């Protein structure tokens, strides 16, 4: 079994977790070949999540920009409001298959936490979600949603009190309780087999997008764009196009206050190879190998590492990774709302901003598919705060 992507990935965990990772790998490979598992997964995606999600031609936005035709893969229309639910349904089915009774998860923006709390309620698991106190403050609505769904939110105040610290704490919990607990990792990071299984569960996005694009336009897109924090929505949509060498794949990292300021979360663009949370990956770290605090207006991209397969795709140049800073993302957020009546998640707004930036210089025949990975209702407070800071610093 391949556990690495080139030099990236692997299983850099304490020995206590190795036997459970081996068990997980074995169970997952069996589930992957098991028609009844796949049927239950597909059926829930259809009847519970509401798939397939539409591929929507953003006509007014595209015509306003005057270049590429921008299509949106509407993951924001999924139950719970983001792509995260595709993965948590898959992992909950695995947990059930393995006889576990408790789910734990880490969350940044809260979307993965909500998606995990949702499947815990659906299947009757006990559920605890680890969340940094910084994120609890900026994503208060999602905390209430998780609690409403019956989950316990465990605040993590160490380090930068964001996603990476929540993941440390979830790994610690799992190290102690793996006998009855399933760790639902929210992105294509973590130790093998997580990057593999999360990609598989999210690849439905790319499968649908490819077929829908062919149906609607008669051809494949020229470019597929997705935001990258850990990189699960990007891996999910890229998966449908990896073999189509003419389709450009672009991952958009969070540029924060600007790469030059050092206040960003762009691991591939601004990081070096290292090991965190069980895998070898590009990491934002200082000269002594200590992990740096990251910065992004969007909590879901505020992570110092990135999924190992993205590192591999970057090195092999199959995908290209670019950055969009806070301000440009917030502008894209507002622009989509006004031109299309769609309020996108701040995470997805990064991907959108890149498409908006590059579209005008392109021909009108060009087709760009943007993964609109989530909806933005949760981000109203963040936007208000960001605008307030902008006004304050302009004075």
């Amino acid at each position, binding site marked *: 079994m391949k556990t690495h992507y080139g030099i990236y990935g692997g299983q*850099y965990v304490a*020995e*206590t977790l190795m036997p459970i990772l081996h068990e997980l790998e074995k169970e997952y490979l069996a589930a992957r070949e098991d028609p009844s598992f796949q049927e239950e997964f597909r059926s829930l995606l259809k009847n519970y999540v509401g798939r397939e999600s539409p591929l929507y031609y953003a006509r007014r936005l595209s015509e306003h920009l005057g270049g590429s035709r921008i299509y949106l893969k509407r993951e924001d229309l999924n139950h719970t409001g983001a792509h995260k639910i595709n993965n948590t349904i898959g992992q909950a089915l695995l947990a059930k298959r393995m006889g576990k009774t408790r789910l734990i998860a880490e969350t940044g923006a809260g979307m993965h936490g909500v998606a995990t709390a949702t499947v815990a309620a659906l299947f009757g698991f006990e559920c605890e979600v680890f969340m940094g106190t910084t994120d609890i403050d900026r994503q208060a609505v999602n905390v209430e949603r998780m609690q409403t769904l019956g989950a316990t939110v465990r605040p993590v105040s*160490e380090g930068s009190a964001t996603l990476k610290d929540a993941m440390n704490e979830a790994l*610690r919990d799992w190290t102690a309780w793996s006998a009855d607990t399933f760790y639902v990792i929210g992105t294509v990071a973590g130790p093998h087999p997580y990057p593999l299984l999360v990609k598989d569960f999210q690849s439905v996005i790319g499968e649908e997008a490819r077929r829908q694009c062919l149906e609607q336009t008669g051809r494949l897109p020229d470019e597929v764009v997705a935001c990258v924090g850990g990189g699960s929505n990007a891996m999910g949509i890229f998966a449908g196009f990896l073999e189509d060498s003419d389709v450009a794949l672009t991952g958009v990292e969070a540029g924060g206050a600007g790469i030059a300021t050092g206040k960003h979360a762009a691991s591939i663009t601004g990081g070096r*190879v290292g090991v965190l949370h069980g895998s070898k990956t590009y990491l934002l770290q200082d000269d002594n190998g200590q992990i740096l605090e990251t910065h992004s207006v969007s909590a879901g991209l505020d992570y110092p590492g990135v999924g190992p397969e993205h590192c591999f795709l970057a090195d092999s140049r199959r995908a290209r990774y670019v950055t969009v800073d806070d301000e440009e993302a917030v502008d894209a957020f507002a622009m989509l709302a006004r031109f299309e009546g769609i309020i996108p998640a701040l995470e997805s707004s990064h991907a959108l901003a890149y498409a908006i930036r590059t579209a005008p210089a392109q021909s009108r025949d060009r087709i760009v598919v943007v993964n609109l990975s989530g909806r933005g209702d949760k981000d109203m407070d963040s936007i208000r705060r960001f605008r307030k800071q902008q006004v304050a610093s302009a004075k």
Partner: protein
Amino acid sequence: MDKIQKIFASCAAADRAALVIFCSCGYPDMDSSEQIIEDAIAAGADIIELGVPFSDPMADGAAIRQASEVALRQGATLKGVLAMAERLSKRHPDTGFILFSYMNVMLNYGLDALCTELRRIGVDGILAVDLPYEERAELADPCRSAGLHLIPLVSPMTSLERAAMIMGEATGFVYSVNICGITGVREKLPPEVAERLAALKERSPVPVAAGFGIADGESAKAIARVADGVVVGSAVINKLLAPGELETRRRDASELVRTLAGSMSRHA
């Protein structure tokens, strides 16, 4: 016979377990931690684990995390720890020294360069918490070239077959984790620990040191009866984290190490 082998052999000859003390280097600052290690050696530690702080210690409990956070704020670095280790090993040529950290800190330094430097300054081995058997090659190779021990971990989750595979390739000693979970003091160790250690020792070509959860002389004594070595970290660090003057805290920590050293004997 190399130094680590000699230590375990002479402990065995005296019918006692070797005492391994984990120190959070750089807590509360570099100079004080050097003094704390001196105290530990004077109080009877046979081997010192030099804990290099990492910003994201995912296998550690509250005590070591808190100490690491302070150490990093005070500017502790791997380079600084190496400089300290060189001084310590010169002053204590019979004490064993094992560098203990997470992979990222070591990768960042460069694994070949690190192993060469450790050998030069008289450190005997490396323990990388997040480097399991499956990933060991990248560090095992430079360790072998430099003549360093790469100390592996086995845990209660590790099957005996897997433990035999891990221990079969070990040099120096094997670190057996007493409990499922992260580092830190536990009120009571699980009752199956003794039986487990006996089974490991039967299968291991190298000495087995046991750690995690050991709170005091009494629990150390129980482990010393069945293991070749006893590792204590958090219990000592808890003494140092307690409120009060540093001098007092240091004395308390040193007293605990003395009590632990007195608990290593298998007589009486």
